[in-house]
């Protein structure tokens, strides 16, 4: 080597720098060709996102000619926060001070929610309407807080029930989750139809969770849920609700219920139950308020059960209407127990047994039926089983089989007067409709149509015969006999309405309290149909624990009359002609 020191030293520098470049090139080759698969996956996933777009839940309409909206989901915004990011990038106290005036919440509450800095998600306020959300977002943007991505608005929907407690037990309610799920009523039963299919957006996002629109991979728009059209008519429902509410006040009752049904189709036109609750505040309601008394409460029906006995007896031709029974002057010793009548009678025809509601007479007829036929016949009228209305929590009631150990020697005579059997109001309506329509037990139904967002009808409700307990002749006879109940001398005179003849039966059932029949707690009920000659509408009314008056004829029949009259006027039913007095066929 014949170099100057400076050149020699430069060679060293050159060598070191060259070596560095070679090492860097090797490092690059290593990085590019041998990526760590788990880190690649993680890095790739960090820019991906899947956003579920909630599908608007279907609407619910009533069954009137111009359907009235009963439930709908409206677009709202949820104000959300990421406390983790907020704590890292911004001043939480400043954010709280900014938001508190808008949100109607004390600052301390907001601070509390944002306190946990490892938390990645909290709701600050849910379901903000656009007109409130907009100024909030403006304020956030003006303060520059939006750039931290720690506070953001998210689309959501909010289920609104514009009529509050109107029809609350039938409509039910949906959860306030991101995807609203039906929790009660038709909201629950038809949840599958109402829900719709959420939309999905798949794509890429930047590090601040802002979507990179050009890299969107998949976008499936949400399919709105199907709309529900009920059979229930809002106006008739209103009549029923008003009537039972006033009855509760007038009779200091614990509760009341009413069902209005088209007797030829089984459609439910009204189903009212009180006490009720505001659907918009369902979370504040009690279980008692949420109970749909029309289908979920079982009670011993009392005298209202008697038409079953008579109808079955006529069907087998075991008795005729004019046949006379000894009513034992109001006290009959049978199978070791005394059976009493409310008003003592010596002798009554079968027709009058019904009209005067004689316990002894009815019990004697029931004994003619025989246990097995009585049981089968009662089942044929829909007792002891669910009728299959499209509502949750329908009770089956209790109807003992003669073969079951619960059936005693007394059962036949006691069941005849509506004791030892438990029913729902819906079963009473089914029975009355069967008597009214020529003997067909129809399935009660509350949903007329399910219509998809594109207009296709997904489900169409239609009448369905469940059983035929009696013939048309028996049915006609029973119609006549039940009409007599509301005539002078009958127990249901207060059920009469102007212009229409009404058929029906009163019921005054003692409630069982601590295993004994109570002397003070009754269920007063009335079930009937009108116009009696050409029946259209069945109405069942029940009042729970009325005080001090407690008989069906005094408490429930006027409620029936009120609902029936308004309904008849509303539906413009043909009044009975004056000269056409009905007679025994």
């Amino acid at each position, binding site marked *: 080597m014949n170099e100057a020191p400076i*050149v020699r030293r430069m060679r060293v520098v050159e060598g070191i720098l060259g070596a560095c470049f070679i090492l860097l090139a090797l490092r690059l*080759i290593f990085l*590019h060709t041998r990526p760590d698969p788990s880190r690649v996956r993680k890095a790739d996933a960090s820019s991906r996102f899947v956003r579920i777009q909630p599908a608007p839940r279907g609407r619910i309409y009533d069954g009137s000619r111009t359907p009235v909206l009963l439930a709908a989901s409206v677009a709202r915004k949820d104000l959300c926060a990421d406390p983790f990011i907020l704590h890292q990038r911004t001043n939480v106290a400043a954010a709280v001070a900014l938001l508190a005036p808008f949100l109607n919440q004390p600052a301390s509450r907001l601070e509390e929610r944002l306190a946990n800095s490892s938390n990645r998600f909290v709701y600050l306020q849910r379901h903000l309407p656009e007109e409130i959300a907009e100024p909030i977002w403006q304020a956030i943007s003006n303060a520059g807080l939006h750039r931290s991505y720690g506070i953001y608005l998210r689309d959501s929907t909010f289920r609104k029930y514009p009529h509050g407690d109107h029809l609350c037990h039938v409509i039910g309610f949906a959860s306030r989750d991101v995807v609203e799920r039906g929790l009660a009523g038709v909201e629950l039963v038809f949840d599958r139809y109402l829900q719709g299919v959420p939309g999905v957006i798949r794509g890429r996002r930047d590090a601040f969770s802002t979507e990179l629109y050009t890299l969107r991979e998949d976008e499936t728009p949400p399919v709105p849920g199907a709309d529900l059209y009920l059979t229930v008519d809002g106006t008739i429902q209103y009549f029923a609700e008003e009537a039972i509410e006033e009855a509760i006040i007038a009779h200091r009752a614990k509760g009341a219920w009413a069902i209005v049904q088209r007797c030829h189709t089984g459609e439910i036109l009204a189903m009212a139950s009180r006490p009720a609750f505001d659907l918009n505040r369902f979370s504040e309601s009690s279980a008692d308020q949420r109970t749909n008394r029309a289908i979920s409460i079982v009670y011993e029906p009392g005298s209202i059960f008697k038409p079953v006995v008579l109808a079955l007896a006529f069907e087998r031709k075991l008795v005729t209407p004019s046949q006379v029974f000894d009513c034992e002057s109001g006290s009959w010793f049978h199978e070791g127990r005394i059976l009493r009548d409310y008003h003592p009678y010596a002798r009554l025809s079968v027709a009058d047994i019904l009209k005067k509601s004689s316990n002894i007479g009815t019990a004697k007829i029931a004994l003619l039926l025989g246990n097995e036929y009585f049981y089968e016949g009662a089942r044929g009228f829909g007792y002891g089983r669910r009728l299959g209305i499209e509502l949750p929590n329908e009770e089956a009631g209790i109807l003992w089989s003669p073969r079951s150990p619960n059936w005693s020697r007394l059962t036949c005579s006691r069941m005849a007067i509506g004791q030892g059997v438990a029913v729902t109001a819906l079963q009473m309506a089914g029975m009355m409709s069967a008597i009214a329509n020529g003997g067909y037990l129809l399935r009660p139904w509350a949903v007329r149509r399910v219509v998809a967002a594109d207009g296709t009808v997904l489900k169409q409700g239609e009448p369905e015969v469940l059983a035929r307990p009696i013939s048309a002749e028996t049915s006609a006879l029973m119609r006549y006999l039940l009409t007599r109940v509301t005539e002078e001398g009958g127990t249901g005179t207060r059920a009469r309405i102007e212009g229409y003849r009404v058929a029906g039966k009163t019921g005054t059932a003692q409630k069982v309290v601590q295993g004994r029949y109570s002397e003070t707690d009754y269920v007063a009920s009335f079930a009937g149909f009108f116009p009696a000659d050409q029946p259209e509408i069945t109405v069942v009314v029940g009042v729970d624990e009325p005080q001090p008056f407690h008989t069906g004829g005094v408490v429930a029949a006027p409620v029936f009359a009120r609902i029936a009259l308004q309904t008849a006027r509303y539906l413009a039913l043909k009044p009975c002609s004056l000269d056409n007095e009905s007679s025994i066929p």
Partner: protein
Amino acid sequence: MRRTSQAVLIVVAMLVGIGMLTLASATGYKGVAEKGDPFWYVRLQAIYLAFGIVLSTGAAFFDYHWLRSKPLLIFLAVLTVGLLLLVFVPGVGVAVKGSRRWIRVFGLGRVQPSEFAKLTVVILLSAWMALKGRKAENLREGLIIPLGVLGMILLLILAEPDLGTTVLLAATGVILLVAGGSRKSHLLVSGVLGICGLVLMVLQDPVRMKRLLAFARPDGYADARYQLTQSENAFFLGGIWGKGYGEGLQKMGFLPEAHNDFIFAVLGEELGLLATVGVVVLFALLTFLGLKISRRAPDRFGCLLALGLTSLLALEAIINIGVVTGCLPTKGLALPFMSAGGSSLISSLLAIGMLLNVARHGEGTDVHTRLSGEFDEQTLNQAFHPAGGRC
């Protein structure tokens, strides 16, 4: 030497070209988000580039020996120290993320004095070492005075704080001292002392300590290592062929400073192995061309100046790429010619201008043989400076 100069120009043009392309891709997103214009940063960089080309053309065509004049050197030193001090003047200095590295200059935006301090240091040290010649073996001329000057500037930069530039300048200074003829024993002792100082610096600064620990033990310091992880991921995601120009996602906020210190990672993700190794090769080529110019410089000053400028650029590229590829702990150093930022681009182009200036004077003269033979400073000096004056 004409061909060497041309080669340097081509290499630099390619680096600038690749840099602008990568920058356009890396800042499109940022530009839209912050300025509403995807080309905002590219346009700004193009203006800096135009400035840089004008200034570096000027730097290439005066006689670099003027730089040896004492008043000019003193002026440069005072100017540099003054600018570095201005950084700390409230209202003039601008602090970003806790570092006061910039001063606000009316009409030009933010200027980073340390970028120009690098050139000053190289000029001052080359001039001093060339002036002292054989005396550099003395402790006073070879070590204490140059290290004193260097140390003063380094302390100012370190105080900003800007450890990256400090380390870079220290390394460049050491190379100049080594080449300039300081004694190895002197250098060794001061080198050990310097490293000790550096270690102390790091130990007393929790942020740096964390960065270093994150580099050494990746698992334990996840958040401190975030930048490095994201940077390495960019190369992983790019693979051999890259995702394609403009298709990278790491620049979308995942990789901090994607347009700046980490622009090389964007290149890696989008254009793959060929581009990244290509850039390394280009920097290596520039280094060898620069060292060739240095060896063929007409005199000792030109030789040291070219060496200093080349080392400066080469070391900056090595440190930057080393950081981005996860070989070195995180530093705030730009990649010459490619990173966004006017000060860095203009000072790098100025360095190239001066390098070409040296090359131009080396033209037609077989200085290499003179240098490689018995070196006679006096003869050499007279050959190029008939007017005389001590060398």
